């Protein structure tokens, strides 16, 4: 399986434009994220992200960096990133859920 490349409309780039939050500050899965919980929570994401490719309007998020995923979701949660679909998805995610999802997707493979 191909590793996900950053999306064309990469949220990272958008984030950089939105004021340059630093990446990579989050601790990795080994530091207590509940990956099994993340796997359950990820089933919501799969409806949209399951077969998306890097260039899709719905980017491939499998194998993205853990801290990147967490940071992007938090930026959707504060509406620093614009798309209402993802803002709504992120609205109910607490920090624990975000950590679990990020840990899960960082190592997950795109379903065949």
């Amino acid at each position, binding site marked *: 399986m191909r590793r996900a490349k950053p999306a064309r409309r990469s949220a990272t780039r958008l984030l950089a434009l939105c004021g340059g939050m630093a990446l990579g500050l989050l601790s990795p899965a080994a530091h207590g994220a509940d990956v099994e919980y993340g796997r359950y*929570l990820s089933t919501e994401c799969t*409806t*949209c992200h399951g*077969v998306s490719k890097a260039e*899709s309007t719905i980017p491939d998020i499998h194998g993205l960096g853990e801290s990147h995923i967490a940071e992007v979701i938090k930026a959707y949660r504060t509406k620093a990133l614009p798309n209402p*679909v993802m803002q*709504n998805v992120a609205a*109910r995610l607490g920090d624990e859920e975000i950590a679990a999802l990020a840990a899960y997707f960082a190592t997950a493979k795109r*379903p065949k």
Partner: protein
Amino acid sequence: MSTLGLPMLSAPALAQGKPRVVIIGGGPGGATAARYIAKESNGAIDVTLIEPLKTFTTCFFSNLYVGGFRDYKSLTHNYDKVRKGGVKVVHALAASIDRDKKHVVLAGGGKVPYDRLLVAPGIDIKFDSVPGYSESAAEVMPHAWKPGAQTQLLVRKLNALKDGDQIVMIAPPNPYRCPPGPYERVSMFAHVLKKKGFKKSRIVILDPKPTFSKQAVFSEGWEKHYPGVIEWQDPKIHGGIKGVDAKTGEVKTDFTNYKPALVNVIPAQMAGKIARDAGLANQSGFCPIDAASMKSTVDPNIFVVGDASIAGEMPKSAFSANSQAKVAAMVIRAELTKSRAFPARYSNTCWSLIAPDDDVKVGASYEPVDGVIKASSTFVSQRNESADVRKQNYKESIDWYKGITADVFG
């Protein structure tokens, strides 16, 4: 089980007495549940899906077929990958459910025993909710609210229209599958008329409801793309829908007699027959469920998901059915294999195409609150959004279709 033409179970598998999950209905609700239970249980659960159709044509995106944006084939999916995912797919109609003996009786004979049953038969049309309408009248005045021949009939009739011909749609009362669906369909009618260069044809929507889903952005889009073509009438305007006559082609309201060239009647709806016959539905015609698990409130061994269920504030949509199926799958696994259970979380987004590259969306996250599934956050497209946003929505919807159909059918 081998008498059903199922793959032979190896003797050890039988001897181990794996827990058995049976699923009725291979739409977004049933097929999702089957695949997730099989996949996540790694073969620890015996999963059988009962579905008469060898191929499933989606209602979702059928409006894009009506509008000429997709062909029929692109809406059709088979069960090969569901089977490869470890699910036994039995192509038969479930005739009845024996809840005491815990087995499903198939129409051709044969019984399929279960430890847990998931029922996802979708809707049945309440033909008599529109006076004069019937299954045979639908051959002349299609509802096209179930996929397949009905949708194709509607498209044939649409494409045969001449300039000046009138279209009348009778919209359904709540609750029905796909709240924005009728209004997206009318948009597609208007798009087809416009593309043909018609100047004189008009579309009338006779609605039993005083308001409808995404009304603000639909109304705006209709004025922008199809000025003067679409007339929406609420009960105050039409005074009441008196009925249809399939022989004369007439549609009568309290105030007017119409004789349109195309009539699209979308009647009231109820849960599929198998669920009602098994006593899983209440007076509403739909099946009450426990909001935290999608378990029937009538029978602890049965779950109901998708259009057949009463899922609180969730709309009846493929997205909702797929979301509910994942919660039910998680709970069923936990009950049968002691895997971890998590709090139920549901979600839905529905995109609607108004005109080429002008697509709107509505969505929400849902959770159980005091026994009812309630929206915890929502969003909806706004008037005056940029063309870029609307075009992006359309592209998203195409990607979503790929995503959800892969999630449902593999």
